[in-house]
C-alpha cells in the first residue's frame, strides 16, 4: 500500500494538512473540529449520516455557505469555515 499524500487546507483561518482524497468532514474531524455549524437556537451540530442526507455537516467552503462537508473532497488551498471559527 502506497503512503498517502497530503494537501494543505485552511480551517477557520488555521493552516492544516489533510490526507489527499478524504472528505472535508473527515479532514475537519482529523483536525479536531466537531462543531461544524450552529442551529437557529445556537446549538452546535456536526456530521451524523456521513452520506449527504442529514445536512448536519454544512460548512462554508471557499466562501460558499451550506456545503455538505461529507460530500466534498479536500483540495489543495481549500478554505473551510465552520461554527468553531465563529466562536
Amino acid at each position: 500500500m502506497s503512503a498517502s499524500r497530503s494537501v494543505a487546507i485552511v480551517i477557520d483561518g488555521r493552516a492544516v494538512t489533510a490526507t489527499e482524497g478524504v472528505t472535508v468532514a473527515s479532514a475537519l474531524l482529523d483536525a479536531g473540529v466537531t462543531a461544524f455549524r450552529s442551529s437557529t437556537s445556537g446549538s452546535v451540530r456536526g456530521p451524523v449520516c456521513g452520506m449527504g442526507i442529514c445536512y448536519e455537516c454544512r460548512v462554508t467552503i471557499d466562501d460558499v455557505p451550506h456545503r455538505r462537508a461529507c460530500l466534498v473532497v479536500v483540495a489543495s488551498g481549500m478554505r473551510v469555515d465552520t461554527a468553531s471559527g465563529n466562536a
Partner: protein
Amino acid sequence: MSARDRADAIVVGAGIVGAACAAALARDGLRVTVLDKVFASAGTTSVGMGHVVVMDDSPEQLALTTYSSRLWGELGSQLHARSEVDRCGTVWVAEDETQLDAVRAKQESYRAVGVTSSVLNRRELQEAEPHLRRDLVGGLLVPGDSVVYPPCATLDLLQVAREHGAVVREGVDVRELVANGVRCDGEMLRADVVINAAGAAAPALTPRLPILPRKGHLAITDRYPGFLRHQIVELGYLTSAHVMTTESVAFNVQPRSTGQVLIGSSRELVGWNAGFNHAILRQMLARAAHFMPMLSDLSIIRCWTGFRPATPDKLPLIGRWEPIPGLWIAAGHEGLGITTSVGSAQIIADQVAGRPTAIDASSFSPMRVFAAAAGAPT
C-alpha cells in the same frame, strides 16, 4: 368565564383574520369565544408569506391596506419577538421604461393616501439590493412596509384577545352557522354576534360566499444572512394577482429573520389539490432567478403549497350577512390576509358597535354577492 358560558361574540376560525377580529371585539368589552377546527393558524395563515404591504390594485384595496398597515404599527409591543416584525420595507422592481412609468404612477397613488415612497434609479436599486440583475431600470422603495411571521403574529393577537377575557377553543368542529348561534359537533353555542372567519373554508359554512381556494407554491432557502435587505416584488405582481382565470407566477422574495429567503409566488385555480405542480414551481423559481440570478446558487430546503381565499372582485368580504341574524363575514382576503386582517377586524368591531368605520367599508360588504348574482352593477 368558562368556555360554556354564553359569549357575546363567537369567531369561527383562528387564522390571522379570526385572531384579529377576536382581539378587536374583546378590546371593545365583548365576551369573545374563538373556535378553530384544528388549531390557531393551522390553515392559510401558516403557509403564506408574512407581508404587511400597501397595495394599489384598486382604490378600495389601497384604502384597506393603508389603514391596516397603520393599525399594525399601532400594535407595537403587543407583538412579541416571536412575531419577528421586520420593518424591512418593500422594493417594487421595474424591468423596463414602461414599468418605470408605472413606478411613478404608483408613487403618486401612494402619496395621495399619505404613504411615503421613493423612486430608485438603476444605481440606487443596485445599492438597495445588490443581488438584483444589473440591467433593471429602477424601482420604488416603500420603507413603511414590513414582514411578520404570521403563525406567531396570530398567537400574539389571540393573546391580546385573551387578556381582554376571550376564550380560544381549538379542535372544535363547527357544523352550521344559525341565527345567533353556532352548531358544533355535539353542542350548540349561542351569541349575539357570530363571525365566519374561516378563510378559504368559509363557504363550507356560508355556501353563498364566492370564495375559491387559489393555490400557491412557496420555497424557502437555507440561512444566508444579509443576502436580502427588503421584501422585493416585481411590478407585474398585481397583474398576476389580478387575473383570475389563468395560472401565473410573479417574482416576490422576502427576508426572514433567520437569514432565510422566502421565494414566491404562484397562483392556480385547481380546487383543493395540494400536490406539487412541478411545472409551475419551476416557472416560479425561474422567474425569481430572472430578477435575482444569484438565487440559483442558494440551497432551497423546503417547498410547500397553500390556498388563498380568493374572491372574484379581489376584495375581501367584511360585514353583516343579512340572511342569517347575527352572522357577520370576515373572509376572502386572498393573498393579503396578513396585511388586511387588522383593518378588517376593526371594521367589523366598529360596525358591531354601531360606530362609523375609519374607512368607507361599503365596497367590502358581503351583501354585494346578491347584487352581483342579480346582475346589478356592483
